[in-house]
């Protein structure tokens, strides 16, 4: 592999663009193909397949044995609420390979000092999500406890099909939230996707433990996603 090819690949990965690396196992020739780039013939068909499946593998194209490695954008986490749990989650997420953004309009919470080195946006989710839309590669965790802040992004996450939607709060709090989301036009099926109370049941007590339980639940939602859509 040439450094130029690796540089092109890494630039694509940094800007959340999908890429396929084609290696000819016979002569060590490497080609980096970005999603959307035109590729003709059977290599084009094979490339399209791995972009869809996300699974690397070896294929035979015109008598050549090619290894196709696929790099899809890493899933990211959007957290609504710059609270104690978010401080821990912001440190855990990068270790697991997740990009993380925190949104909270309350400037008392969303301070640089509490979230050093974290992407933090001190504005209303309604305004932020216009420029940073949620997508299927995004997990949304709403942890402010405040309907004025949490409800809109929760509804939006369900609407666009975020692979994970979690909301902090007791069962009683959640029951009221369900009613509000219905009034916002969300269906029962959509609302049923919300993980509430948030996080895997590991008996988490401290904010850091709740963050860990939430991250584990996000990983589970992402890794089991294929099994669900493959049916």
């Amino acid at each position, binding site marked *: *592999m*040439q*450094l130029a090819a690796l540089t092109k690949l890494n630039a694509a990965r940094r800007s959340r663009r999908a890429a396929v690396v084609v290696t000819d196992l016979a002569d*060590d020739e490497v080609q980096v193909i970005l999603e959307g780039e035109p590729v003709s013939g059977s290599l084009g068909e094979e490339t399209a397949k791995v972009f869809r499946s996300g699974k*690397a593998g*070896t294929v035979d194209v015109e008598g050549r044995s090619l290894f196709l490695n*696929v790099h899809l954008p890493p899933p990211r986490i959007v957290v609504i609420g710059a609270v104690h749990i978010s401080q821990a989650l912001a440190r855990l997420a*990068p*270790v697991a390979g997740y990009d993380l953004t925190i949104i909270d309009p309350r400037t008392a919470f969303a301070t640089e000092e509490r979230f050093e*080195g974290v992407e933090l946006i001190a504005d209303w989710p309604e305004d932020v999500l216009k420029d940073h839309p949620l997508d299927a590669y995004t997990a949304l965790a709403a942890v402010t406890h405040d309907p004025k802040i949490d409800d809109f992004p929760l509804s939006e996450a369900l609407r666009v099909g975020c692979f994970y939607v979690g909301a902090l709060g007791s069962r009683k709090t959640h029951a009221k939230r369900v009613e509000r989301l219905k009034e916002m036009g969300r269906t029962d099926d959509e609302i049923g996707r919300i993980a509430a109370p948030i996080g895997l049941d590991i008996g988490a007590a401290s904010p850091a433990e709740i963050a860990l339980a939430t991250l584990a639940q996000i990983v589970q939602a992402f890794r089991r996603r294929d099994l669900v859509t493959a049916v």
Partner: protein
Amino acid sequence: MTVSEILDPLLTAESWKQAGRNVAIATVIETWGSAPRPTGSHLVIDGEGNFEGSVSGGCVEGAVITEALDVIESGAPKMLEFGVADETAWRVGLSCGGRIRVYVERLA
């Protein structure tokens, strides 16, 4: 660099190469049975034997690093195969019972 960038073998390989270090990239090409790391996983190695990433759960990395130093020296890629640990066939192996094929190439 963020934590995830430091732990990312391909970003590491790029920065090592740009710093003038010799680099080999090892990639899991195929797996059979129970294999700890999926196809496409990377281990990157420099000329001094420093490495980042993984191709197994730590079972065969030592052998891959040794082979990678050869690849860095010669420039010719190698295909390695590891199966169940077996003293007579391989110096190292996978205790989990799976088999993996690993392609090692030099970053030019």
